[in-house]
C-alpha cells in the first residue's frame, strides 16, 4: 500500500510553514486548523503547485519533490488529484467535458466513462449543463468526479464542503465520508472545522500557524489535547491558571481571576485547563456538595444561546467558560445574562495542559 509523505518548510506570509505528514492508502487524514494556518499550502506542495524552500514529497517509492536532491516532478506528471475549495470547474466546458478533461482516449469512450462517474455521484442528468448553471452541491460532486476521472494516485480535498450551504453540507458530508472510506488511495481532506474533520476521517492532524501540532484519532485528540490551541479548536473551553501539587492523586489549579479547580492530570506551574461544554453542569448558588463533583466555581452568566433543544451558556468565572445544558434546564434555572450561577464539573473531566513559563500555549513536538 502506498504512503504519501509530505515534508515542507517554507515562508508563508508572516509565518513559517513547517509540516510533516504521512498518509497511508485507505486511511484518510483530515488536516484541520484555523484559516491561514497553512492547510492549503500543504496541499499545494503535495500537488506540485508550489515549490517550498525546502521539502520532500513522495508517494510510495516515487519521489515527487526533493529540494535537497533537486528533484521536482511537474504537477501534471504526479497524478495527484486536488479538489479545489471553490472547485475550479472550467466554465466554458459542460459538465461531462469537465469530467473527461483528465481522461485519455477517443471522445466516445471518455464521454461514456465520464457519464458513468457522474451517475455514480448522482449528477448524470447534468452532463450537458455548464458549471455556472448547477448548484454548489452539484458542482462539488462534479469536481470530485473530475478529479477521480483522471485516475489519481493520491487525493487531496481543500475544504470540499466550505462552498456549500448548511443544508446541502450535511448530505455532502455523509457522501464524502463514504467516498473517502472506499478509496484505496492516500487521501487528505482539509477543513477548518473540527467536527467536520472528526466525521470525515479516522485520522486527524491539527495544524496551527504553519505547524502540525497534534496527530491522532479525532476522539483521542479531543480527549487529550496536547495544547490549549488544540483543546480550544476541538471545542473545549480553556481556562488559564497555575497548578500546585496536592496530596493524593489530584492537582489543584488556582485560576487566574479567582476560583480553584481540581484535576486528575498531573502538572505544576502555569497550565491551561480544558473542559468540554457538555461536561459542565449549572447549579443555582448556595447549593451543591454531597456528590462526586469536586469542581464548583461561582460565576455570572454572560450569554445564553439556544441551539435547538440545547442552550450554550457563557459564564464569566471571570474567565470565560461555556456550558451546554438542555434548553429546559436553562429555562428552569431562569438563566439570563447577569444571573449568578455555579459551574460544576468533575475533576476527571478536567484536562490540564502544561504551558511553557513564557505562557505560550503550544508545546512543539507532536
Amino acid at each position, binding site marked *: 500500500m502506498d504512503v504519501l509523505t509530505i515534508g515542507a518548510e517554507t515562508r508563508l506570509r508572516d509565518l513559517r510553514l513547517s509540516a510533516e505528514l504521512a498518509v497511508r492508502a485507505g486511511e484518510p487524514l483530515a488536516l484541520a486548523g484555523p484559516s491561514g494556518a497553512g492547510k492549503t499550502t500543504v496541499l499545494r506542495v503535495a*500537488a*506540485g*503547485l508550489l515549490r517550498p524552500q525546502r521539502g520532500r514529497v513522495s508517494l510510495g517509492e516515487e519521489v515527487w519533490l526533493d529540494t535537497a536532491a533537486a528533484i521536482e516532478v*511537474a*504537477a*501534471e*506528471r*504526479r*497524478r*495527484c*488529484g*486536488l479538489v*479545489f475549495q*471553490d472547485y*475550479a*470547474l*472550467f*466554465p*466554458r466546458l*459542460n459538465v461531462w467535458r469537465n469530467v473527461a*478533461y*483528465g481522461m485519455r482516449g477517443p471522445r466516445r469512450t471518455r464521454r461514456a466513462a465520464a457519464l458513468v462517474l457522474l451517475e455514480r455521484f448522482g449528477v448524470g442528468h447534468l452532463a*450537458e*449543463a*455548464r458549471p*455556472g*448553471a448547477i448548484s454548489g452541491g452539484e458542482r462539488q460532486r462534479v469536481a470530485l468526479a*473530475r*478529479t477521480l476521472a*483522471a485516475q489519481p494516485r493520491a487525493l487531496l480535498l481543500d475544504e470540499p464542503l466550505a462552498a456549500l450551504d448548511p443544508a446541502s453540507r450535511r448530505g455532502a458530508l455523509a457522501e464524502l465520508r463514504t467516498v473517502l472510506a472506499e478509496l484505496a488511495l492516500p487521501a487528505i481532506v482539509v477543513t477548518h472545522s473540527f467536527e467536520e474533520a472528526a466525521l470525515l476521517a479516522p485520522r486527524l492532524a491539527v495544524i496551527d500557524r504553519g505547524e502540525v501540532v497534534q496527530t491522532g484519532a479525532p476522539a483521542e485528540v479531543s480527549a487529550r489535547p496536547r495544547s490549549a490551541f488544540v483543546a480550544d479548536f476541538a471545542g473545549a473551553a480553556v481556562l488559564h491558571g497555575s497548578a500546585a501539587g496536592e496530596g493524593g492523586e489530584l492537582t489543584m489549579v488556582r485560576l487566574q481571576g479567582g476560583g480553584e479547580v481540581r484535576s486528575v492530570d498531573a502538572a505544576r506551574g502555569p497550565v491551561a485547563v480544558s473542559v468540554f461544554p457538555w461536561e459542565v453542569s449549572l447549579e443555582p448558588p448556595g447549593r451543591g456538595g454531597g456528590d462526586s463533583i469536586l469542581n464548583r466555581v461561582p460565576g455570572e452568566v454572560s450569554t445564553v444561546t439556544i441551539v435547538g433543544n440545547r442552550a450554550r451558556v457563557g459564564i464569566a468565572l471571570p474567565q470565560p467558560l461555556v456550558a451546554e445544558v438542555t434548553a429546559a434546564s436553562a429555562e428552569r434555572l431562569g438563566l439570563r445574562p447577569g444571573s449568578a450561577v455555579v459551574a460544576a464539573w468533575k475533576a476527571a473531566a478536567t484536562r490540564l495542559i502544561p504551558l511553557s513559563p513564557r505562557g505560550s500555549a503550544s508545546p512543539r513536538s507532536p
Partner: protein
Amino acid sequence: MRRSPFSALAALALLATVAFLLVPVVAVFADVGPGRLLEALGEESAREALRLSLWTTLLAVVIVVAVGTPAAYLLARYEGLPGRSLILTAIELPLVMPPAVAGVALLAAFGPQGIFGPLLDSAGVELVFETAGVVVALVFVAAPFYLSQGVAAFAALDGRQLEAARTLGAGPFRTFATVALPGAREGLASGLALAWGRALGEFGATLLFAGSLQGVTQTTPLAIFAEFSRPGGFTAALALSAVLIVVSGALLLGVKLLVGERGPARGRPWTS
C-alpha cells in the same frame, strides 16, 4: 420623477460626446453621396490602396496575434519573470509614442543607415519603400494594443482553473490552449479589434518608414492624404475616407461578432 441636476448634466455631456464623435463620420457620407462613393471605388488607384491596406493589416495582425498571444500569457501569468514590470511598461511605450516618432525610430533601427541596416541588407531584406516595411510599421504600432489587452485578459483568469488543469495531467501547452485561451477570449478579441483598427488607420510611421509609393506602400490613409494634397482632390479623399470607415467598421464588428461576443454568451449560465 425628479431628476438631479447632475443626471441632467451627465446626460448632456453624453449627448455632446456622441454628437461630436458622430457628426464628422456622418458628414463624410453626406458629402460624398452613394454615387460618388461607387465611382471612387471604381478607380484603380483607390482599389489598389484598399487591397494593400487589407492584406498588410491582415498580415500584421496575424503576426501580432501569433507572437503576442503566448508573450502576453507569459507576462501575465509568470510573476517570477525577471524584469516583468519593466517589460510591461516598455511594451506600452509605443501606445503613447507619436506615429512620426515611431517612423523615425523604425528608420534608426531597420533603415539603410539604421543599426540593423547592414545586417538586413546582407540578408537581402529591404524594408524601406517596400510592402514588407509597411507590415513592420503596422506591427510596431498595433502590437501594443493587442499585448496590453491580452496581458489584462490573461491576468484576469482564475489561476485555480489553470492549476486544476495541471493536476488533471495537462502540461503547460494544453493548459494554455484549453483553459487560458478560451478564458481570455473576449479580452483577446477586443485587443485584436483595437490593433486592427489602429493598423488600418496607420499613417505617420508608415509614411516615414516605408514611404508612400502607389501600389507598394501607399495604404488607404496615405492615398487619402495624396488625394487631399492634389488640387481638387478633396472629393476623392472624402470618398476613400468613406470607404475606409465602412471597411474598418465592418472589420471591427466582424471580429467582435465572430470571436468575442459569442464567447461570453455561451459561457453564461442562463444560455446552457
